[in-house]
């Protein structure tokens, strides 16, 4: 073998420096340390923070954000970006309300309709990106506006409640199926909300899919180098479309959870979901120093955002500063991921 060819630039040796090892652990666990610090701080100021009920109410709101964040993560893995997740969630929130109140469907039909709608929207996103070659940001941005407008049309811009006056003058005769409301309101052992359980199971399933199966590796490979994946035999286009279908379906499930929790079709209920879930997915880059979109990271990011918001509410920080704080947290987390990580090469 060749004498010189083997010498790789600066490698393993670096890890033996104690300083480098500490810095590396810091990078890996930075988000967890900040999270712990925040919990200690919030609890010191407001002891109610760490009560079981409060924690599960945080997790209930985190569940939907985490779900959307996982969807965004899958699209990020194929080097795409789904900006329409928030709108898909609001749209299915309105759709499921409409399906019960106006069309008088039961819980099962409503959930099926919502999930099929989410998957179809994802498919359309995928086809716009693959077939028409619209850049992913623009395609999903367009879809975001289409859905945000479309969801208002059937109810004439109003929220959907029992006894809704329809644009044609008649009155809607349906109501929310109690079985449907249970999806958002049922608590196991009187404490653990059903959405938290479902999202936990889905998170584990998607973690296994993305980290432990060959399909997950292909998602990442397609995002890393599309040509190389194609030449290695991967059906590249199918994977990219699948990523948007997954993200659309997960977002529609998030919409179902919201509708079931709120119990009415509130036209602007999902407005902060996009920012929160994108923040969760991007903060996820920094978790465990992964530097790529990943499921554990997105879930941790969602919890992170949820705790920040809940803590600020408990500290009586005015609601109108929350977006500002969220923005600062996101920028800080991204600085952590991309800024500090630069030293490695």
């Amino acid at each position, binding site marked *: 073998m060749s004498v010189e060819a083997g010498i*790789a630039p*600066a*490698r393993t040796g670096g890890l033996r420096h104690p300083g480098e090892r500490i810095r590396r652990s810091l990078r890996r666990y930075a988000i967890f340390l900040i999270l712990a610090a925040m919990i200690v701080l919030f609890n010191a100021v407001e002891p109610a923070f760490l009560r079981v009920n409060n924690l599960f109410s945080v997790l209930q709101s985190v569940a939907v954000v985490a779900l959307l964040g996982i969807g965004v993560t899958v699209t990020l893995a194929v080097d795409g970006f789904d900006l329409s997740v928030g709108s898909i969630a609001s749209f299915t929130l309105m759709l499921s309300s409409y399906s019960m109140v106006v069309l008088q469907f039961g819980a099962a039909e409503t959930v099926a309709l919502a999930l099929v709608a989410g998957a179809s929207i994802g498919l359309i996103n995928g086809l716009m990106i693959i077939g028409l070659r619209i850049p992913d940001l623009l395609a999903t941005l367009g879809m975001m506006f289409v859905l945000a407008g479309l969801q208002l049309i059937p109810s004439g811009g109003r929220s959907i409640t029992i006894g809704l006056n329809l644009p044609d003058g008649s009155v809607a005769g349906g109501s929310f199926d109690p079985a449907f409301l249970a999806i958002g309101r049922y608590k196991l052992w009187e404490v653990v909300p059903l959405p938290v359980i479902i999202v936990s199971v889905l998170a584990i399933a998607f973690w296994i899919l993305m980290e432990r199966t060959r399909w997950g590796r292909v998602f990442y490979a397609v995002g*890393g180098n599309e040509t190389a994946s194609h030449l*290695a035999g991967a*059906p590249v286009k199918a994977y990219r479309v699948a990523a948007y279908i997954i993200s659309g379906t997960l977002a529609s499930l998030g919409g179902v959870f919201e509708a079931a929790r709120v119990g009415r079709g509130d036209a602007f209920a999902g407005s902060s979901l996009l920012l929160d879930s994108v923040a969760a997915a991007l903060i996820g880059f920094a978790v465990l120093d992964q530097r*790529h979109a990943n499921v554990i990271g997105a879930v941790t990011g969602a919890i992170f955002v949820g705790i920040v918001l809940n803590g600020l509410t408990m500290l009586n920080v005015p609601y109108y500063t929350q977006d500002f704080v969220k923005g600062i947290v996101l920028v800080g987390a991204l600085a952590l991921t991309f800024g500090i990580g630069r030293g490695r090469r």
Partner: protein
Amino acid sequence: MKLLVPRFESSPALRLAGMDKTYGPMQVLAGFDLSVGCGEVVALMGANGAGKSTLAKIASGVVQPDKGRIFVAGREVSLASPRAAREAGIVIVHQSTDHLGVPGLSVAENLVLDGLCAGGIGVFVHKRKIHQKAQAVAARIGLDVPLNRDFGELGPAHRQLVAIARAVAADASVLVFDEPTATLAAAEAARLFDVIERLRARGVGILYISHRLADISRVADRIVVMRNGRRVADQVQPFDLAAAVKAMIGRDLDQIGTRRAFAPTGRPILNLDRVRLTHASKPFDLSIHAGKIMAVTGALGSGKSRLLGALFGVSRFVDGRVDLNGMPWRPRGPAEAIAGGVFMAGEDRWRSSLLPPFTPGADIAGTVALPHRRRWSGFGFIQGRREHAAARQVIDTLGIRCGGTSDTLDRLSGGNQQKVVLGRWQATPCWLLLLDEPFQGIDVGARRDLIAAIRAGARDAATLIATSDVEEALQVADTVAVMRNHTVACLPGLHTADPSSLLAAIGAAEASEAGEKGEFVT
């Protein structure tokens, strides 16, 4: 920038004194001295990892040295940025295809990129004005690429030519070429040498970094050999290339070109019958037998890559009949080709084969396993142990220098990266192995290892290699075919056991090619 050539014959165009550079624990340059006189072509040789590219980056202001002084025309300068280097009169043509130009801009815009970025072309730019200037730039090296084309659509060789044209047009006093011929075929390389000849006559100092001995002996006035960041040899003409190579790799280079005795032909694996690659090209026949290695060589755009791509299902033959093991072969895509036992390692490994670091599965094990996972994973679950065992075997068989199977590819030297790419496709048996430019940008030692591995792996399979380097073709193959205008121009009745007649035939083919106006195909 107007002609900056300083005619102080006493002071060299460029002098680097006492260069030190360390990356982490690894010393890349150790007190390295180099000077390039005005009108002198200095060839810098060194194995992968010897520090050549770092030196080129320092000279062009991309990387800052830890210690050392830089003089341009006798005046000490500090090259804090690429722009500072440009202003001092040093221009570089980078090796990495990523740094050669801007995809998304047209060829014309790329040719005048320096004017656009640094001013000098005016604030308001009109397409016609850009084209005019670009045409002038292209004409200086006789570049023949459609100016309207997107740079991103060009193949590596044309990108290289565009970058060279741009550098020549900068009227620098020192030009640095980092592996300029790595992607060029003989005719394009010859054109580059003419350009260098003219630059030399104008008094430009040229630092020419290359692995290719033939190029070096043709173009250089002086050879500097570096090894482990130090200068280990400095020769003026006439060169003793054997000594230079010995200094470069630290030992004798034994005979790479030991060709295998021409054994009786095995079972035919692949048979092409009157196939055509494009509607305009002539049909040709070709057949490869089990255990045989065939190399196709030919100028850039002659259809080598397209032939391999058509066999792998990336593109289609327009016409004709292809049989694999006596059965019709028409893969609809790489997935079908792989399933049918036809493997291909594409040209330009970072584009065609490897994943960027931080992507899950970008380590050696993941790289080796990527195309085989359909068979290697149970119910979709990744069998980590199996993948790492396969990677370990690839590392051991090919002698890959690395820390372990979990190393990402960016931590390996070019030669070792290429070995991983080859090892990936040798990890499971196949009928036909297609290798597109497998020796691109690697040193002599690594090339020898790769050739040995290709031969060892070719026991039952047929191997088809595309290379624009005739010398490489002769070293690795049992039979050589030459392509021209998308057809096989001179056929492998010629075996490599008779190199002189083969060289004559190839020379004749390429000479007529150089005379023609080369058609443009990516």
